[in-house]
């Protein structure tokens, strides 16, 4: 039976050649995957069905399935309103998150096209503002779905007719929330009802669970966000962008003019601060490394997409004082990685499929799909950066050639201010002296003691190229950013506000 088949000449490049990677020492290899000829390859979502077929949705509103064996794409649905996430349940069924709703698509007559477009949930507001994207779904361990909703932008107005309740007091602000649950993450219950989960988000274009069933949401630098953030999201908490508070039952007023101290006390801090322009400009989806060393020695960590840079970001969560925090570092920068890495999914063969996007209005990015495979060669990296009582412990992926000296590490700390204005300069910038360095017996773990450790700062650590592995390799991504919300004993604190 012929389905709606578009023959794409992409049989080449689908399988990875048995390369000389091991010899050349390359750890990761990228190869392109052709996208369907009849759509612009701006990827909104990727998901593998149990059969091994890849479902992809595109900004254009089209949904396709790829048979990776043949490289043939078959169209499944069309006409959706900017879908930015997909979850394939089978070759005949998928859930998409499009601007107006969470929708279940199903092909019931077996012709390859979805016939059923069932609205699972649309219990949130739309003002017609272009910036009100809907993201997700992230799937929790219990099977429940989570979505996140973008606030509106004062770069454009709203429609005369809205969907949902309009709150005038939610209208002011650079990014605003005048209809329900803009700037929230929400849980989609089995009966289709939406459960407001957490507030305080600006542009949460990245939502996902890690292997420990912790929910992570990324957010973009802007008003109330001095840098780009990755949050560990827990129910009922507020994450800092003030517009959404208008929909919190215990607030229900504009908090725009509340004292900063009050808001700062109320907010949950980001688990990872990604300094703007340096590590990230616009983070996207978080995805956990698989269990076991299937994609390098980074199990227990997260990969995060990045719109403006030719790289991904690797984040190393640890629990300190009962909360998640840790270090973040660039991953596979350069090497042909396209900009606009937007959605990621693990393929059946353990490789990472990366969908890229950009948007008009001059938003930076890329397009198409790339496939990334680990060659089995461990890269020379700082595998983990962990907080100790008096400094940091660095696990390297390879044994070092010799014990580094304190001069081999440059540490600087600073913070971004929490305020209503767009972005933030760096404040409290100061070098921090490394007092001692010791190396473990297996030469893989270095312990650094520091002159001072202050909560509320980001610690930027750069490993010098004098630090080499026993086989002569320098650290590929030597600059790490540790978000020190709490000391090991649980002490938290915030730098004094300069305002």
């Amino acid at each position: 039976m012929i389905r709606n088949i578009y023959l794409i000449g992409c049989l080449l490049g689908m399988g990875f050649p048995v390369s000389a990677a091991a010899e050349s020492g390359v750890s990761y290899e990228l190869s392109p995957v052709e996208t369907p000829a009849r759509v612009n390859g701006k990827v909104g979502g990727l998901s593998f069905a149990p059969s091994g077929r890849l479902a992809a949705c595109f900004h254009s509103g089209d949904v396709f399935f790829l048979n990776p064996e043949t490289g043939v794409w078959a169209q499944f649905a069309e006409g959706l309103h900017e879908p930015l996430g997909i979850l394939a349940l089978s070759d005949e069924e998928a859930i998409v998150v499009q601007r107006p709703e969470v929708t279940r698509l199903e092909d019931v007559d077996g012709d390859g096209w979805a016939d059923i477009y069932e609205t699972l949930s649309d219990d949130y507001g739309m003002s017609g503002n272009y910036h009100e994207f809907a993201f997700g779904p992230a799937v929790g361990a219990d099977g429940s779905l989570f979505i996140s909703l973008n606030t509106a932008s004062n770069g454009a107005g709203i429609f005369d007719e809205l969907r949902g309740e309009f709150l005038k007091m939610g209208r002011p602000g650079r990014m605003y929330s005048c209809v329900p649950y803009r700037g929230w993450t929400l849980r989609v219950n089995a009966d289709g009802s939406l459960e407001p989960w957490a507030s305080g988000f600006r542009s949460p274009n990245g939502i996902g669970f890690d292997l420990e069933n912790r929910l992570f949401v990324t957010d973009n630098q802007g008003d109330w966000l001095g840098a780009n953030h990755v949050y560990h999201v827990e129910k009922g908490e507020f994450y800092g962008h003030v517009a959404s508070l208008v929909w919190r039952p215990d607030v229900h007023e504009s908090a725009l003019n509340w004292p900063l101290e009050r808001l700062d006390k109320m907010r949950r801090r980001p688990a990872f601060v990604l300094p703007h322009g340096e590590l990230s400009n616009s983070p996207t989806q978080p995805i956990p490394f698989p269990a076991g060393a299937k994609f390098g020695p980074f199990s227990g960590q997260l990969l995060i997409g990045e719109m403006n840079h030719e790289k991904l970001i690797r984040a190393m969560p640890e629990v300190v004082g009962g909360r998640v925090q840790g270090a973040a570092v660039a991953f596979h920068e350069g090497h042909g990685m396209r900009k606009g890495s937007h959605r990621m999914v693990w393929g059946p063969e353990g490789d990472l499929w990366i969908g890229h996007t950009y948007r008009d209005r001059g938003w930076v990015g890329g397009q198409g799909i790339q496939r990334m495979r680990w060659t089995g060669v461990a890269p020379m990296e700082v595998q983990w950066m962990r907080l100790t009582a008096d400094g940091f412990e660095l696990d390297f992926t390879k044994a070092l050639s010799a014990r580094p000296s304190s001069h081999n590490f440059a540490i600087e700390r600073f913070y971004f201010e929490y305020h209503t204005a767009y972005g933030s300069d760096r404040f409290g910038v100061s070098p921090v002296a490394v007092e001692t360095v010791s190396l473990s017996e297996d030469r893989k773990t270095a312990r650094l003691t520091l002159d001072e450790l202050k909560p509320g700062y980001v610690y930027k650590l750069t490993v010098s190229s004098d630090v080499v592995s026993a086989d002569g390799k320098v650290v590929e991504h030597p600059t790490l950013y540790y978000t020190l919300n709490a000391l090991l004993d649980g002490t938290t604190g915030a730098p004094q506000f300069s305002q």
Partner: protein
Amino acid sequence: MIQLHLRKRGAPGRPRAGIALTLTFVAALGVAYSAAARSVTLRAAPGLRYDQLRFAVTPGEVVSLELENADEMAHNVVIVKPGKRVEVIQAAQAMGADGVARHFNPNTEAVIAATVVVAPDETARIEFLAPEVEGVYPYVCTFPGHGALMYGAMYVTRDPLPPLETDPNIPERFQARTTEALDSNVYVPGNRARVLREFMPDAGPAAIAVALPGGVNYCWDAGACRFRYAWAGGFVDIGYHKADGPAELLGDVFYRSRVPFPVSFGQDPQEDSEVEFLGYRLVHFHPEFRYRVDGVEVRELIQSASGGRGLEFVYTIPEPPDTVVYRVDGVGEVSVSSPTGEFVDGALMMDAERARQFSVVIEQESLLEGLE
């Protein structure tokens, strides 16, 4: 200017004129065919299509063509002269009541060969001589309503065929878009219905634009759960490249609904109905919207009527209350009618039995005048 004519069409209570034929033709079993013939099998498949988008024969050869009907509807195959597909479809449609008996084969000069109408799970075979003149000879199902989508191309040639994905002779929905079209924001109406959820002018933000075959388009609002307006001409230009505002209509609005909500229950309907959007189901690419009005499920399917100059709204209420009222109020030079009953003061009052399925037709007045 508001000029709304309410007019009765058809006798009240007459069931909707649907195509519900049970065709059990015995296929042409007795036809002998040559063993040396070129054998071609076409299977009619769900979704108004043949399993083969095209096939090739050489000039003058004997072709033995079998039609297997694997669909739930009746179909035929009519092979026509180059460029005559639409003409033959129209001729078959014009056969009216006579069509069934004559298998919707208009038997005009444009027809080269035709099977009988084949019921589901039945098979028919015909044998004919391929034309001597090389060319692309369309094959099409002339069963009313099918031909716009259900067709393919018989190539009479000795040469290799052009690439399938850019073949203009196969149905549009199976063609790849050209590279230029990828960056275009203009959506062109095709020969099938097309749904596009997009920001639309004069509607709530959860709008759905639908292009119907024949150049009539409408906007349906998934927030308010109701039809908003219809326009004729081109479909839409989506303006992401401009200001992320609503799409631009590439035609003229001929009717705009302005009733708060058309469907209500009871003699004394309440002003503010509570509505809930449930989604839609595609029926031949046409969305049948599903929603609840004050807890009662309603389904709404909108089709092209009056040769593309009007709309037919088909409502299904699986479990209707005792009294269902359908109100029409809008702006446009149109006539509104229903085969289900008579509008009184803009309202169609129905008991539960009639409300189970009813339809309303909105036609552009100017066209009617042109016909009279």
